[in-house]
């Protein structure tokens, strides 16, 4: 190993010699020794990683740094985690290569806490580091991380914009919704699709019209993604208690999906209705089980099982659904489930 900074400390030398160990139990004393040296040792380890990054010699240093990151975040070790995460984050402000910074960010993806959000947020303006930083923020996953992503969106262009909107799809922030609604009509397909997903997952009640409009486009892949956004939005609206709006959205989508080629979309709408509005979907499911097309009828029987289960005992609709499901399909598994549920319902 290159040695421009002198011999490694005893704890580092021991770790480099013995890692990886044959078991986690054998590695534990090595990790404890590294952590006992505090920030000074972690900084030394980071320096070694930096010196040897990209070299075959650097493997041991990477093992040791990764071990420290993972071990420090074990349950009940808050002090260790704080020390290591702070040391990693403070290194990001330095002049290391982007490859090394990306490596450090990936360690923070596992052990980083909300306190590391500001250090990660500063990387969101970098064309190369925006993506790993956004992923780390997505893993930290709290309101601070969401706010950082939202704050960075305003000035972002090109690929960074797609990255940030996609990250906000996973981790919604209300302050970004206005910008994302605009992005849903962007000239760039990746931006549009990221925006539709973000609005849907946020359960944005103002997004229904946007998603439905997008679901009417002719381009098949975009149409399928926008359809999925409608379904996701309906589920999120229902989860937030906005069942009437969820149902309205699904009914409007249903009206747009009457063609022969739309059978899989009709299955999805039916399944989502059953999930979101429960008893109000019984009529739709019963009708679907009368379909001549097995591509509609057989999945509808499966939907009926799920709906009956959620309606529960004492509900006449549940028994009616199950009785019909048994007749609507020859699928052994569905018939078994229906009969078992009927028995459980006491019929």
């Amino acid at each position, binding site marked *: 190993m290159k040695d421009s900074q002198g011999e490694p400390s005893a704890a580092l030398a021991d770790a480099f010699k013995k890692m990886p160990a044959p078991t986690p139990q054998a590695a534990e004393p090595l990790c404890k020794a590294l952590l006992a040296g505090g920030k000074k040792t972690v900084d030394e380890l980071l320096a070694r990683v930096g010196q040897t990054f990209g070299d075959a010699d650097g493997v041991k240093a990477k093992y040791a740094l990764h071990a420290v990151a993972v*071990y420090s975040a074990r349950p009940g070790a808050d002090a260790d985690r704080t020390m290591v995460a702070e040391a990693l984050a403070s290194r990001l402000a330095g002049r290391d290569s982007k490859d090394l910074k990306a490596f450090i960010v990936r360690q923070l993806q596992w052990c980083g806490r909300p306190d590391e959000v500001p250090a990660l947020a500063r990387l969101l303006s970098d064309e190369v580091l925006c993506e790993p930083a956004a992923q780390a923020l997505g893993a930290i996953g709290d309101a601070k991380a969401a706010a950082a992503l939202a704050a960075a969106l305003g000035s972002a262009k090109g690929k960074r914009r*797609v990255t940030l909107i996609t990250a906000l799809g996973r981790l919604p922030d209300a302050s970004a919704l206005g910008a994302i609604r605009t992005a849903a009509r962007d000239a760039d397909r990746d931006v549009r699709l990221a925006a539709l997903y973000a609005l849907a997952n946020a359960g944005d009640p103002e997004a229904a019209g946007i998603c439905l409009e997008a679901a009417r486009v002719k381009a098949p892949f975009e149409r399928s993604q926008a359809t999925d956004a409608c379904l996701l939005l309906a589920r999120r609206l229902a989860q937030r208690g906005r069942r009437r709006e969820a149902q309205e959205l699904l009914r409007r989508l249903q009206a747009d999906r009457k063609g022969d080629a739309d059978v899989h979309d009709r299955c999805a709408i039916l399944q989502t209705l059953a999930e979101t509005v429960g008893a109000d979907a019984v009529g739709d499911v019963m009708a679907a089980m009368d379909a001549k097309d097995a591509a509609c*009828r057989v999945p509808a029987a499966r939907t009926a099982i799920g709906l009956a289960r959620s309606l529960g005992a004492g509900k006449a609709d549940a028994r009616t659904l199950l009785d019909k499901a048994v007749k609507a399909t020859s699928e052994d598994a569905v018939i078994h489930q229906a009969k078992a549920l009927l028995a459980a319902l006491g019929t």
Partner: protein
Amino acid sequence: MAKTKITRRRFVETAGAAAATVLIVPRHVLGGPGQDAPSDTVTYAVIGNGRRRDAGIGCLGKRKKIAVCDVDIKHIGGAPDNKTRYTDYRRLLERKDLDVVAIGTPPHWHALPCIHAAQAGKDIFCEKPMTKFIAEGRAVADAVKRHGVVFQIGTFKRFGNARNRSHVENHKIIKHGLMKDLSGTVATTGAKNRIGKTALPGQKVPGNLDYDFWLGPAPYKPYNSARVHYSNRFYWDYEGGDLTNFGAHSFDPFQWSYAKDETSPVRIEPHATWPQHPDAVCPYGWVELTYADGLKVVITGGRGGGKYNRPRKRGMVSAKDLDDEGRKKLADLPDPPKLVTFGQAVRTRQQAGGGAESSHRVSTALNLANIAIRMGRTIRYDPVKEQIVGDEEANRMVNIPMRAPWHL
């Protein structure tokens, strides 16, 4: 002859009178209630035309391959023409004449093509392991269920177990709770244990490969030939080593035999070298996965961690393990539903025997094993919430953020 739009229904009605012309029609147009669909040719395309291609697609029955898709143009015989050769599977999915996709991509590229195929109304044959991380599997299973398409995983030993009386008896006893405590019941299996290289220098990307698309949702790392085309198996960003690669073949039939298709282990204890490298898969000794009813499944890799030597009362359960009342109940129980082959499922719209939900649970168990190995500690899992319990760092591996523009 005048052009007429031929639907499958019309084909069935006129087949007896018509001549011998073979018609390929969309499979979603089928016969009426109580009638099996007519035997006919199903069209399919391959997404990921490298080593595996469509190796397992024989289970589809009568079929015609209409296109291939790969981000390496060497695998598709030249530049794309978007008729028989594609480099972007999203364009391929737009074809109205396509019934089934056979997905032979690396595992980090399994979930999204499966989900998008379901959203496009296509049936899916997907190579194992089903997914790279747990949340992907849930998303695939939900998409398949939601859109009413058929899914079959590329491993088939469960079909054999489902025809074996010992396994059927084992399944029935456990499924119907005739033995509530399965402590001491241990199933063991081995998987190979090849490892990745821990230092991969960057190399020039070959002109035939779209490396950015190959990476897809995986984090960006400089190209090295070891990362792609088979040896991708040994890098955490794309797969979980042989534990997930070969482990799927034995875990899948176990899961059926022990009636665990709708649940997951609750405790996962690893014995492996540690730390694992952040990029490359490293050796492991064994992992013990315990279910809520006490059943244990042990996966052994044989490298490090010592030998598994914990007490074991039995491998499978049988009528001999029950009392008289239990044996009487067993005799009265119906056999489990027959597993439907992929070919039958596509034609009748039933769920295939190696379906998305059970495959997700297999992949979950194997991914949990790898998470425990990478964390170097025992982890606990909630099979209903599908979250790791009490270990926030480990739980971050359940749903890993994807590289934009990709997302679940």
